[in-house]
């Protein structure tokens, strides 16, 4: 490791995506990251490689390549069957040192956010956490700022130069990693100008998955580097992996989400029942604000927001949710937002396409009735 010189940036080439699998099943984030990585690799004019670790996982390579990877680097070893920080970090760092990618993207899952910082610290490089947007190309980055920031045009025009250690640095070839901070109140674009690989964890459910391309899948190149791993080097041991038997709600995949907030407090059970009825009419699922999870009214898998899931369904209905910035950070990209709240100055109305000021317990039964009728009469 000590021989690794990562300040000679020209030595590093290609974009890599760490492809996470659990019990031999790829995570949905992998496809989002491969799709995004394709775009970045094209902007840089380099190859996109997936990095897949596990035990007997080579057959998954085509599934990944179909979303845009040129090459899948497969590292197989019995000790990589279940995730452990030490085994995965060692194999990833060994492979990076040997093959020298310029960027490494990791899904910001509970595993990715354990693994990526450990690797970045060992490789002596920068890591940007939980990104929601990535750019290389300056013109698309500027367009992104025009649409998603309140920065004046003059500032956006001059965004191509950063001061790095007191000297001006041209960022046109740098990966620009944008992420929310301070609970979504501020956004920041981060660069890693002096070290390689540039690393980012990327929030699941935010980037769009490309269509699957069978021709790309069939054309995949598989590389299998030698994996050097000995049980004697591993300080952690997985005793068991338990999938929760309780059916978790799939918020990120849902087309329609009906979420409840503190407004259901006077009749928690009744409020949640109404949300389910409304969701059923529209073929959706039930979400919630953090307040409901913290109060123990609903389980954490329902939580939408900064510390919960980021969602962008076709329809998002917020019932009795005031709209704290942390909540809005997780749902404001939804296509159509409908809010019902007793308080006409609730911040949720700032992002709502349609707002109704009223008691949800009175309004929702009427909504259910009218939506049913409207759908039946179409």
């Amino acid at each position: 490791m000590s021989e690794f010189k990562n300040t000679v940036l020209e030595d590093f080439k290609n974009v890599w995506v760490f492809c996470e699998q659990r019990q031999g099943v790829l995570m949905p984030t992998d496809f989002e990251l491969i799709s995004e990585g394709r775009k970045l690799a094209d902007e840089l004019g380099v190859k996109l490689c997936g990095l897949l670790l596990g035990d007997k996982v080579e057959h998954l390579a085509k599934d990944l390549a179909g979303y845009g990877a040129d090459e899948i680097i497969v590292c197989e070893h019995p000790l990589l069957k279940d995730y452990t920080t030490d085994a995965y970090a060692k194999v990833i760092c060994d492979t990076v040192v040997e093959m020298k990618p310029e960027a490494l993207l990791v899904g910001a899952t509970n595993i990715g956010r354990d693994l990526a910082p450990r690797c970045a610290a060992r490789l002596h490089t920068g890591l940007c956490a939980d990104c929601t947007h990535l750019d290389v190309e300056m013109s698309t980055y500027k367009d992104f700022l025009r649409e998603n920031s309140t920065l004046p045009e003059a500032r956006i025009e001059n965004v191509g130069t950063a001061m790095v250690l007191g000297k001006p640095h041209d960022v046109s070839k740098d990966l620009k990693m944008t992420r929310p901070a301070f609970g979504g109140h501020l956004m920041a674009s981060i660069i890693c100008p002096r070290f390689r690989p540039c690393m980012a964890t990327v929030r699941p459910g935010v980037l769009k998955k490309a269509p699957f391309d069978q021709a790309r899948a069939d054309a995949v190149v598989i590389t299998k580097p030698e994996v050097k791993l000995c049980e004697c080097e591993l300080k952690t041991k997985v005793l068991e992996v338990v999938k929760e038997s309780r059916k978790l709600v799939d918020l990120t995949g849902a087309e329609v989400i009906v979420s409840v907030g503190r407004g259901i407090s006077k009749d928690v059970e009744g409020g949640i029942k109404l949300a389910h009825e409304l969701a059923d009419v529209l073929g959706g699922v039930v979400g919630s604000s953090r307040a409901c999870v913290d109060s123990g009214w609903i389980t954490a898998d329902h939580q939408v927001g900064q510390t919960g899931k980021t969602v962008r369904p076709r329809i998002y209905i917020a019932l009795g949710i005031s709209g704290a910035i942390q909540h809005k950070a997780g749902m404001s990209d939804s296509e159509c937002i409908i809010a019902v709240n007793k308080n006409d100055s609730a911040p949720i109305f700032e992002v709502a396409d349609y707002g109704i000021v009223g008691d949800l317990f009175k309004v929702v039964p009427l909504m259910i009735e009218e939506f049913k009728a409207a759908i039946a009469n179409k």
Partner: protein
Amino acid sequence: MKIIVCVKQVPDTSGKVAVNPDGTLDRASMLTIINPDDKNAIEAALKLKDETGCRVTAVTMGPPPAEGMLRELIAMGCDDAVLISGREFGGSDTFATSQIIAAGINAIGLEEDDIVFCGRQAIDGDTAQVGPQIAEKLDIPQISYAADIKVEGKKVTVKRMLEDGYMTVETQTPCLITCIKELNEPRYMSVAGIVGAYSKPMDVMDYPRLKDDPLIEVDTIGLAGSPTNILTSFTPPQKGAGMMLEGADKATCEQLAGILVKKHII
């Protein structure tokens, strides 16, 4: 056995947040609190202290006023505290921060049966990176997202949460564990603790104190030692005003349903 708990003082982003015209956070107008996940880390350490009588040391890196937070943690039951503070440390990203805190832990002395606790992530940056990076710098195993912790001698068993379940992971001391809110319910300061808080030792570690640790180099700490740089920071625009519907009755809902059908939304 002793336990070192890493904590951070953060602006309270759950309340009203003030942003300066230049897009930076107006910290001066905001309240500061102990980072919520770090309180769970403190509670986990104090529970072990209740069971085994081990020593609990709180460590933070921050400006001098962070001492107030450390006194609060002593009032909750910590035995002593370390404030790592110095101009040279300012502007550090997670990589540089972990170098400095790891050097601070080296200065305290990490022994065979010790454990380092951290909160999962701080609410100002939400990175969750400093814990694992400290573990790497100290060359000890890490277990993050801990929802249950059992310590028997040098053996540590942790229930580590995943999005779709959990895994049970075993390791040996010395190790680092990051804690989530499901782990416990943090206790309050006790009256006796508050009375005694100012008589307990508080060590301040500045740059001259830590500079001989190999982790502390000019190019590994502070702004110069941070591999990442902020290119721009900005506030997101508010979405254009939507349509507020009149009333909250049957006619209102009928109108809404009509619009949604017309726009092919339902």
